[in-house]
């Protein structure tokens, strides 16, 4: 019984939050890693692409809500998601046409492109704030919980409890589906193969008759769709605020780099590693040890590796450690 209590407490405060957060980071990192792998630059505007996509989705959600459309227990935002994705794809493709293509045709080095993306980031940053404002917005509707902590306690009679939110389940299921589909797309389809070929050796790919503009467009489309999905899931689960999304850029990049920049599977693993270490390192194990250890071995203190003040530093620390010992990331990506 004590073992079960310890496990439930661990799931409630460490496992569930970090799986959810990890999924959101993984989706964000996937988009960033695709751009890096094929277009060969770190897209600093990725965090704000997430914010832009979420904003478009929120506006569409409001429209649907005004028309009285709802998805029952599921958030209406899921129905609005395709609209948000389409708008974001349109915006990102227009940016490529107006900004990035100019530099791509001149074959500038990747550092220049990084700076260009920084500029794009500021523009998107401002646009989002002008259109929707800087305030905190909750746009999740439908049933908030699959089961609440109180219900769980009633069913199981355990001392510890566990609450599962609808948005957590939606996040995990959607992430699983999208990652599986993307893996299939890159490995099995003709377009996916041409993208990988372009990433491995651009000149060879051109010689084999691959249309570079088409590959670039597909990369932007995928990256915009993934960013929007990641942003909407994060916003549903927590809340939407442009500034928070801007700050998400760091853990997203940490996840991509840890997994090996340019490596899609690595990005997913990286997302979970960063999320887990953030929660795990700052969690206080006092309660869990209380269930597992005999009474006279109980820890006096909180059994916490780092106080929560250092939460933000954890993604940096993971990043530095990985770069020190495996500069190309855990799953052998391209070195930056």
């Amino acid at each position, binding site marked *: 019984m004590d073992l079960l209590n310890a496990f439930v*407490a661990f799931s*409630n*405060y*460490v496992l569930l*939050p*970090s799986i959810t*957060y990890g999924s959101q980071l993984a989706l964000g990192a996937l988009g960033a890693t695709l751009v890096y792998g094929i277009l060969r630059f770190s897209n600093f505007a990725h965090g704000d692409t997430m914010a832009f996509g979420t904003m478009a989705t929120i506006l569409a959600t409001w429209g649907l809500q005004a028309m009285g459309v709802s998805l029952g227990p599921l958030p209406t935002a899921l129905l609005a998601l395709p609209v948000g994705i389409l708008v974001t794809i349109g915006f990102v493709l227009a940016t490529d046409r107006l900004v990035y293509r100019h530099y791509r045709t001149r074959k500038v080095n990747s550092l220049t492109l990084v700076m260009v993306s920084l500029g794009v980031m500021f523009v998107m940053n401002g646009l989002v704030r002008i259109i929707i404002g800087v305030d*905190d917005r909750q746009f999740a509707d439908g049933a908030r*919980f699959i089961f*609440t*902590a*109180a219900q*769980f*306690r009633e069913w199981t009679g355990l001392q510890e*409890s*566990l*609450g599962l*939110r609808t948005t957590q389940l939606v996040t995990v299921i959607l992430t699983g589906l999208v990652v599986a589909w993307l893996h299939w797309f890159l490995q099995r389809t003709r377009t996916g193969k041409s993208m990988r070929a372009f990433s491995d050796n651009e000149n060879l790919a051109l010689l084999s008759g691959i249309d570079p503009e088409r590959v670039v467009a597909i990369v932007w489309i995928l990256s915009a769709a993934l960013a929007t999905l990641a942003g909407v899931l*994060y916003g549903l689960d*927590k*809340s939407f*605020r442009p*500034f*928070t999304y801007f*700050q*998400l850029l760091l853990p997203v990049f940490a996840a991509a780099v840890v997994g090996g920049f340019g490596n899609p599977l690595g990005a997913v693993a990286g997302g979970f590693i960063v999320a887990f270490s*953030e*929660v795990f390192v*700052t*969690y*206080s*194990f*006092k*309660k*869990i040890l209380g269930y597992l250890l005999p009474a006279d071995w109980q820890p006096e203190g*909180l059994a*916490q590796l780092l*106080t*929560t*003040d250092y*939460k*933000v530093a954890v993604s940096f620390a993971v990043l530095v450690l990985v770069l020190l010992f495996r500069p190309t990331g855990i799953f052998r990506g391209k070195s930056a």
Partner: protein
Amino acid sequence: MKKLLIATVSSLVLITAAQAEDIKIGIEMGFTGPIETLTPPMAAAAELAVKEVNDSGLFLDGTKISTVRGDETCIDAGAATAAAERLITSDGVSGIVGPTCSGATSAVLTNVAIPNGMVLISPSATSPGLSTVESNGLFYRTAPSDAREGEILAQIMIDNGVKSAAITYTNNDYGKGIASSIQESFEKLGGKVTLSAPHEDGKGDYSAEVGALASAGGDGLVVAGYADQGGAGIIQTALDTGAFSKFIFPNGMWGESLLNKFGSQLDGSFGDRPGSDSPGAAKLKEMAEAAGIDSNATFVAETYDAAAIMLLAMQAAGSAKPADYKTKIMDVVNAPGEKIYPGELAKALQILKDGGDIDYVGGSDVEFIGKGESAGSYAEIVVENGAMKVVKYH
């Protein structure tokens, strides 16, 4: 000729003596700077008290009082010091109502008031640091120190049967100050603080913070933050995970948005915020409105009281010299004596003139503790059926 000369000289002496009887009060406030929107009604409230005293004609055998304004700027200690010096040396004031901001107050107090032996009564400086300055009885404030709220809240927690609690606070000076004051007072009363940890405002995810707090445990969670910021995020996560069901809120949390967002999920949570059921507050509000002052503005009552207390102390001492009346300030504010509400300054002046004793209550229910700062009055609030309910006043 000689007689005429003597007569002229003596009449001149008389005239100057009569002029010397009229006194000036300095009003030094942040008329420019970050609180420039708050200060105009405050200064008007001080002038309202002065006018009331002048109209009575009972002050120090008919002495008239005039006011001089000085700009303290709130953030520039140099400008605040210079303004105070000018008030004392060139205007020759007998006392200063102000300064308004804690930083400026501390600069003026140590650099100007103490060396010159000038009395300061600040209506709005709330920093706990000011309680420890050795001011030789020259500094008073009609606003309570932030540390005071911690004492009140700790008492409310004990009264409500909370024996152990975890504290999370917003990571800035206000949050840190109030959290440490709650912890100190709570432990003094026999409570146990399991963990006191900060949270950053404006983040999306607070699961790590709530995880640590939940593991530390406690009968309730003290959230010393802002309702529109990280405080709400912490509560949301704590409710979702079932970590805590009872929350304790200091002043900063009682925003409209708190109950709009969580409603009856917060039933049974409680806390405090400044508030008073004293009849003086209502009376002062009426007077301020009649005088065209925005009566809902903050610190209006405290400022009226600061000016009134200064003048009543002068009356009690029978002198407008700071060295004489500074010892009378505690006497006029605290019991024993006849209770004095706003609009009754004439009555108070008469009582003091006759050698009686008064207990000034004023618009902010003022009672001086320690070296001379307001004890403050706080309303204890509980959440019932998703609405705030005032239980009692402390």
